[in-house]
């Protein structure tokens, strides 16, 4: 059984505009993704492609006007989308750990970090305060926070960004989750700290055998730390496969563009053009969503592209995947 099985997940922004028209932005269009234990999947794509929205849809953390309008998310065979808030609460923070983008503003500014670690542990387990406390200190040690006994009573505002991110990782791991979702875990951190955090994350993921989703727009991170990669464009996963396969032989024109636009190549002036705007989510084109910015686009692209599995095992959503 897959750890996580996302089928045809659709999330839309639904509201009425000032002229009383019902407007619907189709932000996620039939996202499909499978994840096994011990696997690290990177989700990449440009801003607005729906990466974070996918994570929020999985955990039921969407805020109106965003809402899931179709599909299914099976976690260990359980349908998450139909769970009540209280039942979801038993899973979030326990079986699914989350690391978010802004560690300093995400921690509760009025609670000492040790108490926050104890709180998340006691919320999900019946353990005594002393047990939770020693577990918290052990976990702070594990994520590389120096002097955990002393830092236990530190306030969030006293931490550096990197330290706060380590605390968030410790929070996520306190209850030994089976699935870890890291949403841009290193955005805004120094490059050296980034590397430390990701190394740590990879190390812990292997140790605890968690399934992990890392959301990022940095292909370098994917290449170094992930087993598989899902490329998102306009709320769709256009290509999915192992990192080795996709980086060696990208099947989707958009992936090719993306790989061609890494900083090294930009410097060498070899970058393929990544021109054009992402499609208007209110007004998606018929057929392939990337037709407007694809050099291969032809009349065929007006019809929805098939999902083609290449011989390497990677899946590509494109008419021309086999060419």
């Amino acid at each position, binding site marked *: 059984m897959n750890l996580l099985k996302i089928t045809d997940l659709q999330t839309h922004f639904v509201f009425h505009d000032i002229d009383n028209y019902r407007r619907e932005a189709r932000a996620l269009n039939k996202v499909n993704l499978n994840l096994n234990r011990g696997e690290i999947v990177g989700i990449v794509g440009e801003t607005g492609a729906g990466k974070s929205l996918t994570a929020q849809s999985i*955990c039921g*953390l969407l*805020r109106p006007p965003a809402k899931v309008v179709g599909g299914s998310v099976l976690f260990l065979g359980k349908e998450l989308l139909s769970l009540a*808030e*209280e039942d*979801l*609460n*038993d*899973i*979030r*923070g*326990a079986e699914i750990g*989350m690391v*978010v983008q*802004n560690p300093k*503003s*995400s*921690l*509760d*500014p*009025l*609670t000492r970090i040790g108490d926050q670690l104890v*709180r*998340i542990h006691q*919320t*999900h387990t019946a353990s005594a305060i002393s047990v939770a406390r020693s577990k918290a200190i052990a976990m702070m040690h594990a994520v590389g926070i120096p002097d955990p006994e002393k830092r236990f009573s530190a*306030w969030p*505002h006293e931490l550096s960004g990197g330290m706060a991110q380590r605390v968030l990782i410790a*929070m996520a791991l306190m209850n030994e989750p089976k699935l870890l979702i890291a949403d841009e875990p290193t955005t805004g951190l120094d490059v050296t700290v980034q590397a430390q955090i990701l190394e740590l994350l990879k190390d812990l993921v292997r140790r605890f055998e968690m399934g992990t989703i890392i959301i990022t727009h940095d292909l370098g991170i994917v290449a170094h730390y992930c087993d598989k990669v899902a490329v998102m464009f306009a709320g769709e996963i256009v290509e999915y496969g192992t990192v080795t396969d996709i980086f060696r032989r990208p099947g989707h024109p958009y992936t090719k563009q993306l790989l061609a636009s890494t900083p090294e190549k930009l410097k060498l002036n070899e970058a393929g053009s990544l021109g054009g705007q992402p499609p208007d989510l209110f007004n998606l084109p018929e057929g392939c969503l990337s037709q407007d910015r694809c050099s291969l686009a032809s009349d065929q692209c007006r019809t929805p592209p098939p999902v083609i599995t290449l011989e390497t095992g990677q899946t590509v959503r494109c008419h021309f995947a086999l060419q």
Partner: protein
Amino acid sequence: MVLPLLIGVVFVTFMLVRVGGLDPVGLLAGPTATAEEFTMIRKDLGLDQPLWKQFLIYGGQVIQGDLGESWLSNRPVLEDITTRSFISLELLFWGIGLGAAIGIPVGLRAAFKPNGRFDQVTRIISLLGFSIPTYWLGLVMLFVFFYLLGWAPPGMGRISLMVSPPQFVTGSYLIDGLIEANWEAANSALTHLILPVLCLAIVSAAPIIKQTRAIALEVIASDTVRYARACGLKIKTLRAIVFRNSATPIITFVGTEITGLVGTMSLIEYVFAWGGLGQYGLNAIVRGDFTAVQGYVLTLALFSVLIFLIVDIVVAIIEPRSQLN
């Protein structure tokens, strides 16, 4: 930070009268005065000096606690103000206390289910509270509870004329009466307090509800609460987090709101003939007793500054991010 503010406050109260169309000389001299008498009075009052010198003289007097003499009561303004301040503080304390005790929980509850039925209803009620003229509300209360039902005493003063007031301890007849176990006095003080306090509470609760709701909604939409949800914390814990993170802005808001409420309270005092600073000040304004008006406006401004300082201290104590900790 506070010092320039204080100088500014003194300056505004000074200008209030000097630049106004009213001529104190004409008032004092009367219609039959001769030109020599006019210059005499001008000299006496120091009005022949340049404006900046007059301001310095006035400022110097204020620092020494000399606010001049009221021509209505023929007594030093400072004396009038100090005795009446306690009378007003009693009303202010209970009124705003009750207003906050109603407004904060209601605002929080409305924010937990935005656009729910409770939210919609409290929203209309609080907007109505914004719109009711305080003095009219007081009059309606007197009509209903004094004239129609006979439950409340007439709106005159803060204790029945038949009851001798208790010894001065805190300045509040209610508390002082309880302290010396003078049940009759305490009871009479309480019945006199209820209507004006209710009036002030209603008027102060409306903005507190609205602002508490807005603050709590902001906190609910913050990264902190979204992350707390991602941690699967129980709804009760989430609410506690929202409440504690809203506390600082709410306290700050209530502090700034007190400034405006002091003005509102003056009107309530006026309607209920409360005899406090507010009534004194309004009478002074209406009758053109400008020495007293200056003293009154100055006192209110100083009181606001004092409240701001207290708020800063309270926030510094409860905020781990502040320098104090």
